[in-house]
């Protein structure tokens, strides 16, 4: 039983990261209807920036805040410079654009910081949490930060003018434009926020997976999977999907014989396909009725 509880808690902790990534994926998906394949690389690059700042002697939380600012500006800049011209292009062209961005960021990070694995500090420490053997302080911190972030986003979208404007621009762009919302900048804002959320996920997971240019590839896959599982149109669903993914991944790795670490991802993805076959819009997604 202790093994089970342990695995579930560890699953919730990694699930928190998947939830962050999924949230970032959903933010951009809501804004422009595309899955951002470069999301993980953007997060990785931001994490490297924070690492570099710390190497220069900036304290952890200072580096954390500066990195968020950098990630936000970077996200807005990428949208303005690279993807705004593609807004009217076919969906496949956009996917190619994301892959190109992925390739550019990955290669540049490799050139600047090389491909050796680096230690990344945790602000929470790695001792057992509150004397309990079940969960480490860093894992508890990961869950805590994710929940805070969710709460913040909830209030932002529910109770601020700009949050409302962003929701309007995402759901009905034409009508939003008619009431004076600058939808084009709302999209850029969505990119910036998604980039910052991704940076948080990157900085939280870096102590676990270590810092190197390919660190986010696996995380992004789970993030995608979580977002699709929860329903791409629902930020809440994305978060639930993230936690479910984390728990399921750990339990499958522990209890299904022959799975181990190698087959974890395929098994997790197989689960998603089965969910999608039963509920094609994901667990919390809304069904879109199409007109002929």
């Amino acid at each position, binding site marked *: 039983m202790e093994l089970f509880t342990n695995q579930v808690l560890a699953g919730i902790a990694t699930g928190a990261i998947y939830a962050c990534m999924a949230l970032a994926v959903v933010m951009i998906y809501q804004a422009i209807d595309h*899955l951002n394949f470069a999301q993980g690389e953007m997060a990785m690059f931001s994490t490297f920036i924070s690492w570099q700042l710390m190497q220069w002697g900036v304290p952890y939380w200072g580096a954390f805040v500066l990195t968020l600012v950098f990630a936000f500006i970077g996200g807005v800049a990428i949208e303005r410079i690279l993807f705004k011209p593609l807004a009217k292009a076919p*969906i*496949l*062209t956009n996917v190619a*654009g994301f*892959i190109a*961005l992925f390739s550019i960021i990955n*290669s540049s990070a490799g050139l600047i910081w090389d491909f050796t694995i680096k230690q990344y500090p945790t602000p929470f420490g790695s001792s057992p949490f509150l004397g309990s053997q079940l969960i480490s302080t860093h894992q508890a911190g990961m869950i805590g930060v994710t929940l805070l972030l969710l709460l913040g986003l909830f209030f932002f979208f529910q109770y601020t003018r700009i949050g409302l404007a962003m929701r309007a621009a995402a759901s009905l762009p034409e009508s939003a434009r008619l009431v004076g919302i600058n939808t084009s900048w709302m999209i850029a804002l969505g990119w910036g926020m998604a980039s910052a959320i991704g940076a948080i996920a990157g900085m939280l997971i870096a102590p676990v997976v270590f810092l190197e240019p390919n660190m986010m590839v696996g995380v992004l896959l789970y993030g995608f999977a979580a977002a699709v599982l929860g329903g791409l149109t629902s930020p809440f669903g994305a978060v639930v999907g993230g936690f479910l993914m984390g728990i399921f991944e750990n339990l499958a790795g522990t209890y299904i014989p022959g799975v181990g670490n190698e087959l974890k991802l*395929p098994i997790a993805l*197989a689960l998603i396909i089965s969910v999608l076959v039963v509920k094609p819009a994901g667990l919390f997604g809304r069904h879109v009725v199409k007109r002929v």
Partner: protein
Amino acid sequence: MSAAEEIVAEGHQAVEAVPKRAMTLGTTTSLVVLAALLIVPLFAKNFIIFQLTMLLIYGLAVLALNILTGGSGQFSLGQSAFYAVGAYITAVLMEQFNVNYALTLPVAGVICFGFGFLFGQPALRLSGVYLALATFALATAMPQLLKLNFLEHWTGGVQGLVVTKPDAPFGLPMGQDMWLYYFTLVVTLAIYILSVNLLRSRSGRAFMAIRDNEIAASSMGVNVALYKTLAFGVSAGITGVAGGLSAIAVQFVAPDSYSFTLAISLFLGMVVGGVGWLPGSFVGAAFIIFVPNIAESISKGLSGAVFGVLLFLVIYLVPHGARQVAIIGQQLIGKLKKN
């Protein structure tokens, strides 16, 4: 505008921009290209012949994806899985069962058709990004599945299998590389011609009707489920043949050669070549084979970045890929003729 609507709008535009006949090259152009493909190897070094062979093989795989996406409007990021299955079937049949290499290709094609058809069944309920994720899962799972212990007896596990390169038959005076090139060319041509005819046939029109508007197609009596799975099957079958050819050409199969990166490359090939334009598949294949090399020669450390920048240039300047270049070229020639 939702993603689905965007595809519809895109399909509509494509239909207007390219009349049906322009799905392929004109007769003269085709003959010139064919003549070039026949003659060039006679004067080229073995390494270049090998690269041309790979170009044809990748072109075939991109063509398969093009039939699926350009034809029936379905997305796939999992083509590497079918490619891997085809390659392994050929390798295992040749090395463990001593089957003639040419006979392994139809087997690979038929088995992959079956796989694709079966995979198409659950995929039927998914569309757009959801289908992309499902096929993506297939692509990531495949290398792991090939490493499984109980298959190791045949597949060689992580080590992979070495494949012997066939000699030219009937005592023909040509090297192994050249023979393989012409063999690949014949297979490619046959499949290309069949694909063109498939897309022009009743089934092809059913594919395109589904691509342009699924609901309208079904209300006109097109069996959407059947044709969608059929498109998956045909695409997987052709990819399987390409995979089999690649096993013979590369002389080696190993699980990690068929990772998600391969699926991405094939996808990029299709976008660069122009979705729905079959000759573009080979232009796209050239892009994914040669551009990484060019990027490497420009800057070793930044090759990925250079590749990304080149890719961005392509999609900014010609968002419809090589097809758009071809159309612009045609219009220019038309204008010159008028003057």
